């Protein structure tokens, strides 16, 4: 891991993300933003196919997504990895107790660029935490992998399993 990776690779355009989510049938995006994810909000807010649900902390996002799913909607949780750390109990309950096949996109802070936070411990803990919570995920490091995201989430949807995509981000 170096601090010299370029920081633009994780930056999908909001329209690409909105289009991807809509094509997967996602009805609601439940989210707390970071500086990468936040750039997608405009496209999601303008969408007539996907509704943005703002929550105050990431644990809530899993609870709201659980309720949406139980109510017949198709939600997706959109948070940063720091929010993943704080939302463990809610994730455990939704995915493992109730076995709800929820989708999530999780931003991997500092993966591409550590200038702002040298030695960011997100790089130490993000993947082991996902493994610890037994969340199968696809790691995306470049916008050219949009089709991989689609394929992964489609496969998970068709299998009735949770679908998580980890997206490398640049500066925190």
């Amino acid at each position, binding site marked *: 891991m170096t601090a010299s990776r370029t920081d633009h690779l994780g930056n999908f355009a909001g329209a690409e993300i909105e289009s991807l989510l809509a094509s997967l049938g996602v009805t609601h995006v439940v989210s707390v933003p970071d500086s990468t994810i936040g750039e997608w909000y405009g496209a999601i807010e303008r969408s007539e196919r996907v509704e943005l*649900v703002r929550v*105050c902390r990431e644990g809530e996002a899993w609870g*709201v997504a659980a*309720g*949406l*799913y*139980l109510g017949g909607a198709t939600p997706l949780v959109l948070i940063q990895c720091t929010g993943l750390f704080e939302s463990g109990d809610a994730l455990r309950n939704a995915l493992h107790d109730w*076995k709800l096949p929820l989708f999530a996109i999780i931003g991997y802070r500092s993966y591409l660029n550590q200038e702002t936070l040298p030695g960011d411990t997100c790089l130490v803990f993000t993947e082991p935490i996902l493994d610890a919570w037994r969340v199968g995920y696809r790691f995306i490091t470049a916008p050219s992998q949009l089709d991989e995201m689609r394929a992964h989430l489609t496969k998970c949807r068709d299998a009735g399993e949770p679908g998580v995509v980890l997206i490398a981000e640049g500066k925190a």
Partner: protein
Amino acid sequence: MSMQLRGAMRALHSARRDDDIVITTMGAAREWMMLGPRDTDLVFVPSSMGQATSVALGLALAQPQRRVIVVNGDGSMLMNLGSLVSITAAAPADLVVILADNGVYEVTGSQPTPGAAAGRVSGTSVDFAAMAKACGFQSVYQFATSAEWTRAIKGVLSETGPTFVALDVVSVPGTPGPRSPGPAAARAKAFMASIRGT
């Protein structure tokens, strides 16, 4: 003055509509299971800390044609106070949050919560109803006796929401926590089939 949780829940059981979704957790879940939930109810056991209100918000957004009622405890509410803000941000008109406030973590041995007078240096309890009002709940109520609650409940549930109701309930030390009524995943499937089919 305060009321028994069981009596408060009995009043709700009588006043709810057949097609309401009622979500209960912790002590309220225990009492609701004794009263007999409908297929459209979600006994949120096992739960995650403080998430009943968040699950209720999701259900209210997904099922806007139904009234969603969630009964939460004050300890659980304190673990997820931000959900009050998230609820009013989304503003589902048919969501009712009922807070059964007994001032303690009853199922762990009745230790005072940090919101209760006994758990605070100041000796004054936090005002959940004022908090809900400040968050922007459309309709906010507080009831200290079973008679008041029972008299008002139908009108309260019919208000334009989101609605917040604080009930002052007595703690019953030694009361056990709720026992899961069965495998959660199977209950989730049955719940989903029920609300889609009715």
